[in-house]
């Protein structure tokens, strides 16, 4: 284990707890989490789950909880959109445009009274959650009411502007029966700031609910980003999740989906493009708990420079969970001789009437395809760009929301340093 600076973290936790004074149950939980965190420390690379990701650099700096900044100069929020904004881990009412209506209601942990108690039962299960809970700065409880269909996406912005700051958020997104919504989580940071951001997103889809959940991680290239996404799907509900990793010095996401009742379906799509010294780690777990549940998972990665990417995708089919279709694939493009990819797709199956497949590939651009393009008079560099962009763009295909898709295309181009070629590529 990696020990943490005890006095520093006690002090910070004390600061964090002071904010939740109106929620005594939460303060108790935070204290419990703090004790557990200090006793356990952070896992080292001898722990199987953290084999490829070293958290040691996190302890080299003492991050502190900092107030929201006066102005967010570098970031322009979209006009005419439903937004919720968190800055340095604190909710910013003045910047948020989402309103409580008949079909949407939201509460923020740090604000006034809370008439519902969100489910915090799993917050001590993994180390990211323990760390997050101990130092919790704020959180959101967003409910889409029964039978409501929300057409316009709800954007949740997480903006970190403080050097050496840290933010710890815990969100609950609840889709009641027959509701539909699109929720976009943005993670942004001032470039080259070094900070720690942890975030837990709990998603609950009740019967027949449909959620499109986007998570676009564009933290500063020096940031540490630790996230946990837990989705629970009830009868006939559907989750479409799109996860993009572009920023962070070190990012780790524990992404789990429990298919708890029949007819539940999830589709996880992911794309990570890593450069420089980035280290991006995605752990996904799809748990088929009952019969007649299906899942598709499709992650792609482009790894360049001295960066390293880790993918660990596990699919579990429980005993008696028959009639399961589960499909998983992870494809990686390794562009530099100093880059590294560690992928581990795994299946754990305890039922027999199932069709489960997984595949993983690591390779470079197809020589034949490059040759084909050069016979058409396209120079080598453009040809490489076309193919690389095409590889990444694949993941956007199932995004039906036009505006979102176009924005993501721009982000991919920027990440690949191809902004100037966009005329040719799009």
């Amino acid at each position, binding site marked *: 284990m990696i020990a943490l600076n005890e006095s520093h973290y006690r002090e910070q936790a004390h600061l964090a707890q002071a904010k939740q004074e109106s929620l005594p149950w939460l303060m108790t939980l935070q204290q419990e989490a703090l004790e557990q965190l200090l006793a356990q420390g952070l896992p080292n690379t001898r722990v*199987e789950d953290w084999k490829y990701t070293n958290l040691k650099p996190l302890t080299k700096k003492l991050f502190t909880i900092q107030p929201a900044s006066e102005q967010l100069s570098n970031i322009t929020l979209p006009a005419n959109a439903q937004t919720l904004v968190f800055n340095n881990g604190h909710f910013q009412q003045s910047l948020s445009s989402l309103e409580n209506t008949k079909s949407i209601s939201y509460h923020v942990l740090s604000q006034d009274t809370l008439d519902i108690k969100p489910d915090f039962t799993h917050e001590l299960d993994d180390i990211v959650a323990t760390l997050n809970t101990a130092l919790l700065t704020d959180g959101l409880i967003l409910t889409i009411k029964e039978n409501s269909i929300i057409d316009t996406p709800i954007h949740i912005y997480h903006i970190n502007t403080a050097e050496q700051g840290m933010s710890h958020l815990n969100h609950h997104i609840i889709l009641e029966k027959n509701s539909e919504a699109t929720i976009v989580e943005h993670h942004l940071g001032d470039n080259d700031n070094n900070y720690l951001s942890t975030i837990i997103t709990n998603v609950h889809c009740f019967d027949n609910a449909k959620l499109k959940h986007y998570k676009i991680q564009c933290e500063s290239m020096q940031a540490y980003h630790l996230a946990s996404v837990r989705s629970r799907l009830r009868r006939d509900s559907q989750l479409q999740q799109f996860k993009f990793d572009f920023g962070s010095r070190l990012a780790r996401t524990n992404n789990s989906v429990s298919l708890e009742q029949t007819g539940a379906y999830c589709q996880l799509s992911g794309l990570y493009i890593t450069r420089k010294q980035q280290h991006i780690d995605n752990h996904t777990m799809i748990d088929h708990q009952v019969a007649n549940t299906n899942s598709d998972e499709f992650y792609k990665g482009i790894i360049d420079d001295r960066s390293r990417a880790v993918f660990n995708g596990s699919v579990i089919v429980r*005993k*008696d969970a*028959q009639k399961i279709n589960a499909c998983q694939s992870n494809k*990686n493009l*390794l*562009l*530099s*001789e*100093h*880059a*590294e*990819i*560690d*992928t*581990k*797709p*795994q*299946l*754990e*199956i*305890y*039922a*027999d*009437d*199932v*069709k*489960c*497949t*997984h*595949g*993983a*590939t*690591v*390779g*470079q651009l197809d020589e034949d395809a490059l040759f084909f393009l050069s016979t058409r008079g396209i120079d080598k560099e453009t040809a490489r760009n076309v193919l690389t962009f095409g590889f990444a763009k694949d993941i956007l295909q199932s995004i039906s929301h036009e505006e979102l898709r176009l924005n993501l295309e721009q982000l991919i181009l920027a990440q690949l340093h191809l902004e100037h070629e966009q005329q040719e590529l799009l």
Partner: protein
Amino acid sequence: MNENKQLDKLLQQDYEHGFITDIESDTIPPGLSEAVVREISKRKNEPEFMLEWRLKAFRHWQTMIEPKWAHVHYPPIDFQEISYFSAPKNASDGPQSLDEIDPELLKTYEKLGIPLREQEMLAGVAVDAVFDSVSVATTFKSKLKEMGIIFCSFSEALQEHPALVQKYLGTVVPYTDNFYASLNAAVFSDGSFCYIPEGVRCPMELSTYFRINAMSTGQFERTLIIAEPGSYVSYLEGCTAPMRDENQLHAAVVELIAFDNAQIKYSTVQNWYPGDKEGKGGIYNFVTKRGACRGVNSKISWTQVETGSAITWKYPSVILEGDNSIGEFYSVALTNNYQQADTGTKMIHLGKNTKSTIISKGISAGFAENAYRGLVRIAKSAENARNYTQCDSLLMGDTCGAHTFPYIETKNPTAQVEHEATTSKISEEQLFYLQQRGIETDDAVSMVVNGFCKQVMKQLPMEFAVEAQKLLGISLEGSVG
């Protein structure tokens, strides 16, 4: 359902090779200490370096803890309960020919159908039969000697070729490698040694039959095969064990070394006692097998059919050091009743243009757990490395489990690595297709299972393929008209 009947028939089949041969064994009392290690070495009249090595291994082993990461469950093993040496009593006199061998032993082999006497010429197999821990007979030796091939028991190699053993022992699997490899290094009783000189193509399949006997004797063999430049050898290993109610520990180590342009083909059929239908008894098979492709264009190929043992824990691996070297792994693992298998391979690519192929087929029935665990590592130096992995699992019944844990680590952008895995049961469509062609359900199931394993079975040497198919317990080829 007919399909179920066929499965039930397969599932209920009793272990055919279960019987105990009544021979007095010269056994060291249970327990493990430095004195026991010294005693084993002394009884075997080993050279000094061997004892030193064993002691170093033993001291290292004492600092290690039993690994827990495998997907298997078993009660803790008390290493002080195990007897670490057992030799058939008559063996100490050293039999000169087959006639001097205990007839009881020969009967055992006959029951197993091992071609040792009359069959030896017909089968064209040189058998180094290990009965418990000491090699009893080695055949075809003179013929191999003419060609300069050394094929003998490990003890014999230590007496006659100590320099060779000293040079290569532990260079692929060091005594510090893992818990069971260290234990083996400290207490190994015997095994096989094989040396193929430069440019020689071994004219016959070399084969060792292992058999565990004598109560509570863990068997710790060690096999070392060295293929000098330009040589070729195909080595077979087959196992059966008598019925017993007690779990027996088996921790073998196999080391293969292939130099420039050399090829080693290592095939295993493992059919140790898997325990009864309630999961009682059975062998614990914790094996470390590793090959090193030291030279350019060298090739090591592992083929295994694993049907026995209560717990199988084994990852035959290849370290591809030489440029253009090739590693292959073909495996069928069948688990039934309460058997557990956690098996797979490791392919470590270091040299340029190295290639590896992994084909793994797991079949799980009853209450069994079958896991594939594999590592493909492409080091920075491995330009143009290529790997293809396919691991398929077939589930029979809803109480068994099939799991896949592949680790893929790539540090070179010119590498191409592919992994694919599927898990399914025999599909209704496949059965329906065959049935509508007039094929009985039973036969259709056999055909599908046969087809499922064929890719691996065809890698086995002819003699072995027959036994392996029999072991799979489903009549295959013959039943299809």
